[in-house]
């Protein structure tokens, strides 16, 4: 396989992993915020 293509695939997975981590953080943040808002 072409080295450039392999690198593109490999590093794109790195960014997908980072975005997933960020999405996870956002989901947890929203969950915490909505939990706090619901408190009397």
């Amino acid at each position, binding site marked *: 396989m072409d080295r450039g293509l392999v690198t593109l695939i490999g*590093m794109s997975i790195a960014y997908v*992993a980072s975005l997933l*981590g960020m999405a996870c*953080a956002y989901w*947890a943040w929203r969950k*915490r915020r909505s939990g706090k808002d619901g408190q009397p």
Partner: protein
Amino acid sequence: MTQFTALDWLWTIAYLLLMVGGPLFFYKLARRSESDFFLAGRGLPWWLPASSVFSTHTATDTPMWVTGVVYAHGLRGLWYTFFAAWTSVGAFVSARMFRRSLAYTQAEWQVVRFGGLGAELLRGWLAGWQVFMNMFILGWVGMAMGKVCTLAFGWPEWVGLVIPSTITAVYTLAAGFWGVIIGDFLQGIVAIWAVVFVSIVGVVAAGGATEITARLVSMGQEWRLDPFAFTGWWSGEFPAAWWLTMLVIAVLGGFGMGTSIDWYVEAQRIQSSRSLRDACYGIWAGGAITLVRNAFWAAAIIGFFVMLPNLTSVAEYELGWFRQGFELLPAGLVGVFFGAILAIHFSTISSHLNLGALYFTRDLYQRYLNPGASERRLVWVGRLATFVLLVGSFFYGLMMEEITQWLIFALWLMMAGVWLPNILQVVWWRFNASGYLASWMANLGLSWLVVWILPSFGVIPSLPDYLQFWLLMALGALVFLPATLLTRAEDMDHLVRYYVMVRPIGWWGPVRREALRRGLVGEDSTPIATAWRDAAGEPASPRAPAPSTRRPLIRRTWTPEAAGGWTREDWIAVFVSPLVFAGILIGLTKLLLLQMSGLWITLATAGGAVFLYWVIDPKLRAVSVEYETRQAVYLADLEKQHRWEQAGIPSPQPKAAPRPRGG
């Protein structure tokens, strides 16, 4: 292909039992808690993190990479390896601040430095990146082992990729970071022995140091012995501008966090140390031993070049040091050499398995998915993550074709776009989460533009790597500076809390003044601080006491409070330390090749190291003693925050209990 005798196999099996059995003894310690499984309980003396830094950065691919650059460029190629010298500054700057934060990981540090949603997004981003990056490193190191096994035994590459890594995973799964650190210590001893012995054998086989020099002269290649054989300021394959770029990346990088791919490994060792002093010495000594190793390799590879000067394929000459071991050692010792190769492989694999699992467990699972998880569950999640990383690394390893290209690209991508933001997040109070996150997100796109897309369409020429670095840095600044300045600064309560905890170096004037106003830090009237304030246009506090006695040029008696600030002694350490590192690398290499200049450089380097210790050790001792008494209370507080038990960031009050200021 190498012929193994029964004695060779005996040595290999004996080393295998030592390197796997030793770490397994620590199984019971690792299962006690998350802190034990990932930080060995934060109680390690400096020599254990030091040996671990060296062992982890001595991977199966490392001799290939060092061989490749020294064979191609002579001793000037050693400067490629000088990026390890960031530890010479980092030990006294970024390590000190990171240790004070007590964050498990660089991702966790983001929520200490920044606040709100931006900090959480950064933490998630870095955690995802590091889980992947460790899998990627495991893949390329595993593939290097596959190549070595092919060279030695003719096995298919996948065998060398899968079997040694799987053996490593056994003790990493069972004993966690305790196993990693004990294994690294044992493996480090074996590795340094092999590096020294095989390199000396390589030099002797080439006719000895004098003969090597004579043959290089007769070949018209004596420039290979000159580490400063520049081809001009800007032209040729080794311009001075390239060298200066490498120096700037390494030395200034020590002021930041994450400026090198190695930082993430060192960060774990910094936090596993029992005090700030142990953390500083741990990564300093680890970096120094790494450069000693490079010096031995370089001497051997110069000898290899003299014996086989006409190799043109990178894949062929990058195996030079391994060939010296397998082809020059007598039967019986080849098994010892292979045992050492296993040692350097195990140490790197185990470290990255545990590190990747740490980011998943601490920063993703515990922080976002299950904050209330028990210690027992966290240890098991750590083990599961270790296993998943192992399997993922096999996939990545099989994708890779040439080790060196991947390594250089990964390092470049890591450094170029986020190098400056990694420093700014440490030294500039106004830099915020938006700016840092923007720099990370833009990094991949900009790298592709500069390295491939724009040259392909003829928009810009294909630039040498050092110009790519500066261009990427400048383009990155066009993204992260507006992102920082057009968004709000971090909340002042959060910044004050961070300042009091970490006592950062750099431009922190507004935050320091606020901390002073709240009575959370004492006035620092040391001359360097005064000069710094004057330069920044800050007024002196009316409460500042006038110095009653004349300050000695080098102060060697410290109170913990005074030692917590940045003083002249720190700047002396920051200046002398990189010179010592450069002296180790160049002086020792020349000494091994029996050049007289090597002797003088090595002697001066030894003197510089003693002076460095004399200047900085009293400060590190003072600050460490104070901090150790408060660490347990502070760790409990940190754990509550991590589990979301403290909503938001409480405002520090003037009468609040004092925070730890040392490390």
